[in-house]
């Protein structure tokens, strides 16, 4: 990401979230920068999804979340795209991929059919994600990887300034994960937006994130990926038994293993 001006698109200052009298997040300071991938890492229950929901304005919080517009994005509030962790759809739900695109964009009720514009934009963005053949498939019957790509295609169709991805590779097979990550960096090169990615998988983080925010109910650390993912910081987040294993040298990236017995 050299040569790019690192303007902020989002600034979080002293953010705190309480749920049922319990402080789930406190003292969070973080910035998202234009054209960069920022990874949000932390153990289960660290408040990663809560932070996303706060950015989306779906949970009450104290502190500040400021959206900043880069000049090339034009006026007005920035558009935020959101890809949820999963869609709890049963396999028989009568909702096709095209229906899902129509539901989230067109005014015409979906039982009168998808508009020509919806149809066209859905086809284009699905093809861009390499899943054009899924247009008429029921949403509930997609594999984990297919669903993620469809959700990603939908998020990108609306050309967001900030895209929030909640665990984009959970429930995806290894091959699907590779494709997904390739796609991610490809999109990243083509459009200028900032991306906030919640991930459990440190191999994804080390390969694709420019910045990392480490979270465990409070801010453990944040900064450039290479500087932040040190054994000390990982221990502070996951406990002392966690190690970033180096796999075979050719592999070149680490997986986090939490070893049994605390």
């Amino acid at each position, binding site marked *: 990401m050299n040569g790019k001006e690192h303007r902020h698109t989002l600034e979080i200052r002293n953010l705190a979230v309480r749920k049922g009298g319990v402080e789930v997040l406190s003292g969070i300071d973080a910035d998202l920068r234009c054209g960069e991938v920022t990874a949000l890492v932390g153990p289960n229950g660290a408040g990663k999804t809560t932070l996303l929901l706060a950015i989306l304005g779906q949970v009450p919080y104290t502190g500040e979340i400021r959206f900043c517009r880069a000049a090339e994005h034009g006026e007005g509030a920035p558009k935020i795209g*959101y890809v*949820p962790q999963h*869609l709890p759809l049963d396999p028989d*739900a*009568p909702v096709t991929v095209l229906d899902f695109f129509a*539901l*989230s964009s067109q005014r015409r009720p979906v039982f009168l059919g998808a508009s020509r514009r919806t149809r066209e934009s859905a086809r284009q963005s699905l093809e861009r994600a390499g899943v054009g053949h899924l247009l008429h498939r029921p949403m509930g019957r997609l594999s984990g990887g297919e669903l993620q790509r469809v959700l990603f295609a939908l998020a990108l169709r609306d050309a967001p300034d900030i895209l929030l991805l909640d665990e984009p590779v959970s429930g995806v097979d290894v091959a699907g994960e590779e494709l997904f990550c390739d796609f991610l960096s490809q999109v990243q090169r083509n459009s200028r937006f900032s991306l906030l990615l919640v991930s459990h998988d440190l191999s994804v983080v080390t390969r694709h994130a420019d910045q990392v925010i480490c979270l465990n109910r409070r801010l453990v650390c944040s900064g450039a990926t290479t500087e932040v993912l040190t054994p000390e910081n990982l221990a502070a987040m996951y406990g002392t038994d966690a190690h970033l294993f180096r796999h075979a040298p050719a592999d070149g990236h680490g997986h986090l293993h939490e070893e049994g017995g605390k």
Partner: protein
Amino acid sequence: METTLSFVFALMDRLLPFSFAEPSFMKRAILSILLTAPAAAALGVPLVQHRMAFFSDAVGHSAFTGVALGVLLGVSPSWTMVAFGAFVAVAIILVKGRTDLSSDTVVGVFFSTVVALGIAVISREKGLTRNLQAFLYGDPLAVSDTELLWMAGVFLLVCAFLALLYNRILLLGIHEGFARTKGVRAQAVEISFALVVALVVTAAIRAVGILLVTALLVIPAATARNVARGAASALWISVAVAVLSGFSGIVASWYLDTATGATVVLAAAACFALTALYRAAVKRR
């Protein structure tokens, strides 16, 4: 009002030149079913997506209490039934949004509370049971002209609701957080949906009764799920099942001399069974 209905009745004489459609009580029955059943079936599609079948059952049973309260207060029970149903529907949605309890638990609490209240009122007022009979089992053959016009009004309201909010209510049923990022105002949409469901449920009670009213919402939508591939066909199949089972149920009840509401529900259940068999056969192949 009189002239509109006599015009509709004259039209029905032309369209249905059969002996069962001759008496005006049969014409009223057919109209009442054809107005309420498709409206209920269309709302049933998002209702099933939201897993709210139990909710509509609770609203249906609240009618029991609404009727009892009406008799107790000396107000027309038809109106207190509608008002109380709407009140219970909105109360459930509001409480559900403010607790961590699962929605079926919240509905369960409301369900038993309103029925208990109804029983308490009825047990105090002897002679009320006769009034309740018509609401418990329903009787489309005894629907009045005013009630028919009310049903037509509710039918139009459902059409307008679906045209304006169908996409949002369905998206909300798929993923609330995602729907919110698409600008869906979750609680406003949910409350208006609950209100429309309450209106349809209380209107349909005159036709099929408190005990069976949920069937009009759930069975056609469940039947559609067996065969529909997309959101558009799901709604139209659901409505078609309602019209088909409504009409054939009334005709069958005329010849078999059975309760009309129950026969309509049985016809819908037959549609469900047939499509379920079809689905099983297709799956095995």
